[in-house]
């Protein structure tokens, strides 16, 4: 096979995958709405700073202005541009959600698959540990941890991973248990294929869809906690922009100029519900595919 053939093969596979994704998107309206909204928000966060040149930290005398051409979403109580702050807050939230969700998925899924596949004592220990972790109210622990170690991206992500890892672990475990006795897994085991390889080649790809749904819903939960913590002043530290923090700051002025809290509220609701809609949509598509 020449290099050109290889490139062609890759390209046709990519085109195929794209076509399949578009087909899935068309089949479920909720999923489509979620994806479109989510992509729009991510684009705003990524490209926003290139378009909106206003400094999110720059205060001015033009306080609590409504929307205008100079400030598309108006200004806050110290004259900072709300659009620039929304973009900054979004970037922070997305950073947290990507790191925390990736960490949760990586640890939770690998340990969960291992526990479900091996069963026995490993599984028992994993289950008791998650029993305990799930019994701890997550927001409480997050608040206590951040109150003592100080607010910072690293502590926040760590706390979120510890909070949500049990959920991912349980779902992955259940998926692995279902696949454990399948013929292809048994035959791989009999041919003395290593555990890690079996999990990677046979178990993980066949439970990918379920795990994707779970990971998406975890991302929404991460955002709920992150914005709540920022609201309490335990997330991003002022004056750094955060969506929760903007709502907390705006509360003093909301009766005079409601837009200072309505703008960040709308953005948070749009972001979290787009992710929830994607998770629910994927779940429905998956259910339809298994039913078929």
């Amino acid at each position: 096979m020449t290099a050109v053939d290889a490139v062609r093969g890759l390209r046709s596979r990519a085109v195929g995958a794209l076509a399949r994704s578009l087909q899935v998107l068309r089949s479920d309206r909720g999923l489509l709405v979620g994806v479109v909204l989510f992509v729009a928000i991510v684009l705003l966060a990524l490209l926003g700073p290139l378009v909106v040149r206003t400094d999110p930290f720059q205060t001015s005398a033009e306080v609590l202005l409504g929307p205008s051409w100079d400030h598309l979403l108006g200004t806050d109580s110290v004259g900072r541009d709300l659009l620039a702050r929304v973009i900054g807050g979004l970037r922070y939230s997305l950073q947290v959600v990507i790191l925390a969700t990736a960490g949760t998925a990586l640890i939770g899924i690998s340990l969960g698959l291992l526990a479900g596949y091996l069963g026995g004592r490993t599984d028992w220990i994993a289950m008791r540990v998650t029993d305990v972790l799930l019994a701890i109210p997550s927001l409480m622990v997050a608040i206590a941890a951040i109150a003592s170690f100080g607010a910072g991206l690293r502590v926040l992500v760590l706390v979120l991973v510890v909070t949500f890892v049990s959920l991912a672990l349980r779902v992955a475990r259940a998926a692995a248990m279902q696949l454990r006795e399948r013929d292809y897994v048994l035959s791989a085991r009999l041919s003395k294929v290593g555990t890690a390889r079996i999990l990677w080649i046979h178990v993980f790809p066949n439970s990918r869809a379920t795990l994707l749904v779970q990971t998406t819903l975890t991302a929404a939960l991460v955002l709920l906690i992150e914005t709540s913590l920022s609201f309490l002043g335990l997330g991003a530290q002022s004056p750094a922009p955060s969506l929760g923090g903007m709502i907390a700051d705006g509360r003093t002025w909301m009766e005079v100029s409601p837009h200072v809290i309505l703008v960040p509220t709308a953005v948070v609701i749009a972001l979290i519900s787009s992710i929830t809609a994607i998770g629910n949509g994927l779940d429905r598509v998956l259910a339809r595919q298994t039913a078929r």
Partner: protein
Amino acid sequence: MTRYVLTRLLILPGTLLVVSFLSFGIVNASPGSVAASLADPNDPASIPRIEHELGLDRPFLVQYVDWLGSALRGDLGSSFINQRAVSAEFASRIGITLEIAVVAVLFALVVGVGLAMLAARYRGTRLDKTIMAATTLGVSIPSFMVATLLVLFFSLYVPSYPIISFTPVSEGLLENLRSVLIPSFAMSLPAAATFCRYVRAASEDILRESDYVRTAKAKGAGRTRILLSHVLPNAVVPLATVAGLQFGYLIGGSVLIETIFALPGVGSRLMQAITERDFPVVQAGVLLLALVFVLVTLLVDLLYPLLDPRIRVLRSAA
């Protein structure tokens, strides 16, 4: 069955031990010392003395065992800041935290199950789709935002309504209930949406697969009647577990709601203690809320077989 109950009960002390260790450990590992904030800023030499008086200079494990021992005897220490006994302070506050969570769960059950039945009655129609889309929104809006928006709404359009004012039970039960109504509503939306999704999915399964629904249909029962007398009772039983879990989340979320509505519960006191670095109060508050959470989930697990006889049979057969 007995074995199941025993395992659940055996896990309980282990869980509580871990929770207590976490709440103690996390708070004590704090770099900023309370002694430094209590000390006279012109007299930094007094910091070690204050640390000694508060017992903060002892080894970590000694402090933990000492604290745990007293906690088991009901003594949670006293606040560094106002010197009041923590247990006494929380005893008067836990009632409010439980009250808003209970009212919120009841509210969520009525709204969630009601909407689910409505969606199932008109399944496939636009109403069904609208309700289910609304639940996506319901689980996606942080409760502190609902609370803030409600405060905004009332102050703009119904300024005469005292939205941020708490009336204790001693001044009249009705007045008290009125003052927790809006806070409970604010925190109930995610729970209501979860219940609605759950019951809607369960009724879908029951409508499609169960023999008793087919029998009822064959006997000529209408859709509403089938839903209310055959589907609802069966769809609601598994909801007990979900409701218990949601109650636990609500207890955890009380910090936000109590802070916004200035309710004198455990959550708002905890938040205040966190900003003041008042260790004993933070430790006791986290432990207390975790204890409620653990007990509620345990209770639901234990009650569940009583609600659904089929599980009782299955478990004793196994």
